């Protein structure tokens, strides 16, 4: 390993340490304090505490990015903070439309798979003016959710991924980055975030699924970040993904009957269609990322010839 790579690896390790430590301390402490898995709790006080921890916790990777740059005197070159939207508007639009698309598709697949013959009109509220308004309002609300989403993205896509891509080939970097991102969520997953605590194979299946989900989403987020050399499209995508994910869409548009049916199922099985569709998006992004590298190499070889 040459000295440049050694330095990159050292910076990456510092970043990961700063990003990982807070959650791995705060969540067990809160669990011990409240005496139950905090993200699966139905106690109102605990729910409020977890939502605040969620908002501030999402900003930890950005904080880690900032700290690492300052401690290692790296400076703020290639910080991915520019907009770079000239000729790249397509990626900005995709960053909103793609998460919306896969969320809507996941809801439809969920209805087809799990609603056992329930008609569409029985499963979903009619899309009148009020529901459309609520949907649009929720989408606009992404402006606010953008802050915590940016908090994660500036750390993962704006710092970790470029460093990983320096250290290893792109495909390996995308997988490693996704797994690291998934493991960062592990304390939350163990505490019942996303899947609850009542599923077979708890908590390892949940952690594994989170790693898979993060890896496929990481492929798309890395693609739009690398194409635009900006972290904002990834932050928009993350904001829409969190704000209008299939769960939010289902609880907003599903009828009471449909939601009751969903509650009967375990968190893991409801999320499977979402992971499958997200997987398709991830594979497509992965191919585009790798093909882009092949094209660049071919152009470089042609230039050299």
């Amino acid at each position, binding site marked *: 390993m040459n000295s440049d790579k050694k330095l990159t690896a050292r910076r990456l390790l510092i970043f990961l340490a700063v990003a990982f430590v807070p959650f791995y301390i705060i969540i067990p402490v809160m669990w011990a304090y409240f005496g139950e898995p905090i993200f699966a709790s139905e106690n109102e006080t605990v729910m409020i505490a977890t939502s605040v921890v969620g908002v501030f916790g999402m900003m930890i990777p950005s904080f880690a990015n900032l700290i690492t740059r300052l401690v290692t005197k790296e400076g703020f070159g290639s910080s991915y903070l520019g907009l770079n939207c000239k000729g790249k508007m397509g990626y900005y639009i995709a960053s909103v439309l793609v998460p919306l698309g896969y969320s809507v598709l996941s809801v439809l697949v969920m209805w087809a798979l799990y609603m056992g013959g329930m008609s569409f009109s029985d499963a979903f509220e009619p899309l009148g003016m*009020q529901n459309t308004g609520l949907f649009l309002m929720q989408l606009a609300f992404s402006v606010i959710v953008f802050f915590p989403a940016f908090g994660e993205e500036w750390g993962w896509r704006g710092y970790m991924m470029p460093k990983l891509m320096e250290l290893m080939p792109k495909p390996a970097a995308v997988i490693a980055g996704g797994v690291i991102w998934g493991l960062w969520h592990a304390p939350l997953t163990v505490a019942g975030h996303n899947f609850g605590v009542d599923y077979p194979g708890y908590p390892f299946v949940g952690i594994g699924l989170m790693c898979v989900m993060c890896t496929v989403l990481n492929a798309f987020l890395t693609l739009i970040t690398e194409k635009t050399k900006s972290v904002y499209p990834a932050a928009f995508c993350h904001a829409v993904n969190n704000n209008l994910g299939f769960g939010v869409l289902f609880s907003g548009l599903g009828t009471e009957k449909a939601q009751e049916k969903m509650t009967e199922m375990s968190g893991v099985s409801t999320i499977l269609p979402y992971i499958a569709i997200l997987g398709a998006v991830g594979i497509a992004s992965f191919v585009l990322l790798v093909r882009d590298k092949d094209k660049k190499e071919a152009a470089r070889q042609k230039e050299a010839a």
Partner: protein
Amino acid sequence: MSGLLYKNFRINRSSLIFALIIQVLCCAVILLVCFFQGGKPFEEEGANTAVFIFSLLYFLGSWLPAMATSEIFRTDEGKTACSFAMSLPAGAKGHVESKYYFILIENIIILFIGFITDTLTFAMTGGTVSMTIFIMFVFCWRMMISSVEIPFMIRFGSQRGMSIKGAVVGIILMLGWLWFLFGDIWFILDSEDPIAAFMEFMQSGDIAFWLSLFPYVSIIMYYLSCRISVKLYRKGAETYEQ
């Protein structure tokens, strides 16, 4: 563009600091109220009053800095400054766009402070008070007002631009007043808790749809305003004093 942005931050440092201090002060008052509440949830009526007072403070925190928008343009109003701006590689387009970016960044910072305050307020009041949607609407409102006033400031100078903004706000307030006088608002006036009745009205029926369009309209208006201002800049520069 980053150079022009840096220039804007340097020149308008004082107005930016003023904006941030106002917003921080308003947010500090909100947090103090919640702190003296002793971490207990508000009762229903108390929560409605808190929502009303907090909305005024959030609005004030965001609105007062808007008064300083004209300063951002006044600093560059002059034939020499305009000729210099147009001679730069980014040209008039870059010069005008950098002002729009500056105002957007300033508003985003103010929105961020509001968001953090709201998250803390939510926790401190046991989830009884959340103003996130209101904060977002104030942000959109500021974007909309900026998108109306800036083209006039660019074309006719900051003084006239300010007057036109005043007129626009005046018309909006007058329309609101007319609605208050002649509109169908018996359900608010007859209610025991008018604030709660108003909140219910805003969340009900078709009004949710029209309200939901507001953020999108404000973003589109801001973008279009920037395009128009770029076109107007050259004409405006001819009318500036030396």
